[in-house]
């Protein structure tokens, strides 16, 4: 029997509590900052307790923005982020399901070539092809559009591999039975494969929603019009203003809280799916 080791258990709890504090503290301080009126920052006396400005700050950030530094309200940015995250998650899942289906359930020339073409995208993150990708999007007239924000990001090798693995575990007898009953490929896909992959789709959706919401470089490149700013990249404009003469820290921190709230809530509310999705996509 492994010794019960009271001392070790206490040390373990201590380490974990310390860990939780380190994780929570930056966010707590940001929250505190988001509840203090802007003038409190000038005195430099903001501690660990929330102030009285919560409602005003969030109202100002969401609906009016900062007129002094010319910063637009973040309400529309939240909406843009939501649209982009949903489009990326749904788009990636849809086209990956289709390609995994084609690769698993059909034999055709260039099948392996197609597989490798998809595989290569793993090695080409936006960061290594910034300028030329921007040029393509500009040539297609997709700057400052929702399609420009989402479509170039929805190719996915990871999702395709994941669904391929899921499909490979589905017994061939099911396919045979479906065919005897007269189901064509699309009928089989819709009525059998999709329902059987439901939990995998949900788990992947959680991961991809977070991925989409947290995009930074891409929206920075393809949006120059404030109407298409997403909140995660929009913060930078505000922080830049804060670093200059006119500090709007209360708005920066309010925006920061608003920017992280949706994805963090998704993780906490769907913890089991999140963990499943994370582990599966990295296999």
């Amino acid at each position, binding site marked *: 029997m492994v010794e019960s080791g009271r001392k070790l*258990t206490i040390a*373990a709890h201590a*380490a*974990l509590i310390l*860990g*939780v504090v380190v*994780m929570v503290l*930056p*966010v707590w301080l*940001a929250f505190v*900052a988001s509840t203090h009126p802007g003038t409190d920052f000038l005195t430099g006396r903001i*501690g660990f307790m929330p102030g009285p400005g919560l409602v005003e700050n969030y109202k100002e950030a969401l609906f009016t923005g900062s007129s002094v530094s010319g910063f637009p309200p973040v309400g529309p940015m939240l909406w843009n982020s939501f649209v982009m995250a949903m489009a990326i998650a749904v788009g990636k899942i849809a086209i*990956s399901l*289709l*390609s995994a289906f*084609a*690769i698993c*359930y*059909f034999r*055709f020339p260039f*099948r*392996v070539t*197609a*597989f490798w*073409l*998809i595989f*290569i*995208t*793993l*090695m*080409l*993150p936006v*960061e*290594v*092809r*910034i*300028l*030329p*990708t921007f040029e393509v*999007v500009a040539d297609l007239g997709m700057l400052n559009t929702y399609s420009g924000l989402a479509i*170039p990001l*929805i*190719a*996915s090798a990871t999702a395709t591999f994941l669904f391929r693995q899921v499909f490979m575990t589905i017994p061939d007898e099911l*396919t045979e039975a479906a065919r005897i009953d007269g189901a064509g*490929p699309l009928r089989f896909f819709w009525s059998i494969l999709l329902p059987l992959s439901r939990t995998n789709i949900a788990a992947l959706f959680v991961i991809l929603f977070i991925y989409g919401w*947290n995009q*930074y*470089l891409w929206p920075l*490149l393809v949006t120059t019009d404030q109407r298409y700013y997403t909140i995660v990249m929009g*913060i930078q404009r505000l*922080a830049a203003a804060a670093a200059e003469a006119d500090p709007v820290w209360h708005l*920066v*921190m309010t925006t*920061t809280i608003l920017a992280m709230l949706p994805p*963090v809530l998704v*993780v*906490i509310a769907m913890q089991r799916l999140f*963990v499943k999705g994370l582990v599966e996509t990295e*296999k």
Partner: protein
Amino acid sequence: MQAKRVTFGGGIVPYLLLAPQLAITVIFFLWPAGQALYTSLFAEDAFGLSRQFVGLANFVALLEDPSYRSSFVITIIFSVSVAGISLGLGLLFALAADKVGRRAMVYQTLLIWPYAVAPAVAAILWWYMFDPSVGIVARGLRILGIGWNHHLNGTDALIMVILAASWKQVSYNFLFFLAGLQAIPRTLVEAAALDGAGPWLRFRKIVWPLLAPTTFFLLVVNVVYAFFDTFGIIHATTGGGPGQSTTILVYKVFKDGFESLNLGASAAQSVVLLVIVIGLTALQFRHIERKVHY
């Protein structure tokens, strides 16, 4: 690569199914990557009026450029620190959570959510805490007699972005280490305990070796993260400064290409990054293959 034993006939159907994925791959991935490769061999003026084939001159210029070399060194320091800190803390918390047993789930919930925070947002959190005039940590440091100003001091700025990048990544490592620890057969650990091995010896001789595949996998993932996903951290806060002190490679590609419009140099940098990604991906897949055999 195998397909199902039972397949559909289909004719044109599989091509239609693959069309959206392949179209996006070709238009937004392969074509631009090809362009980057091609451009890296040319010298072009900022207005794009003339271009001239220069072979590998852009790469040679890059290697001789002291600012590129210093950016490389900064990236190495940054990546090693981020991977080291976030792997170390992730492992520590995972060991503790594994030890705690049934209540591990509560801690898991409390520890994993930072994964959902965007790197740029995480950076703002730390940027604010360390702000020399309003940040609470900077104030605390001043009381301890340590001066802090990441607007002026390059080392301070680098430490700040390293902490922000690591903070966000701990939860990911924690989750994978915990899964790895829980997969280690209890009987092995118990047998060693019966033979009189203490906790430290058990960790060194049993847990650590069995955890090696997880550690290796996470090491690669963390290096990829530190190299490529941290653009937002730099761009949202320090902007590569003060001076060059936080200009990591991905930030430099962006700056040289988009702000200085030095297209040949930027393309050559893209190609260097591309080689790094290919190397790291190959490492990762070799590891997966080994896991399959094992």
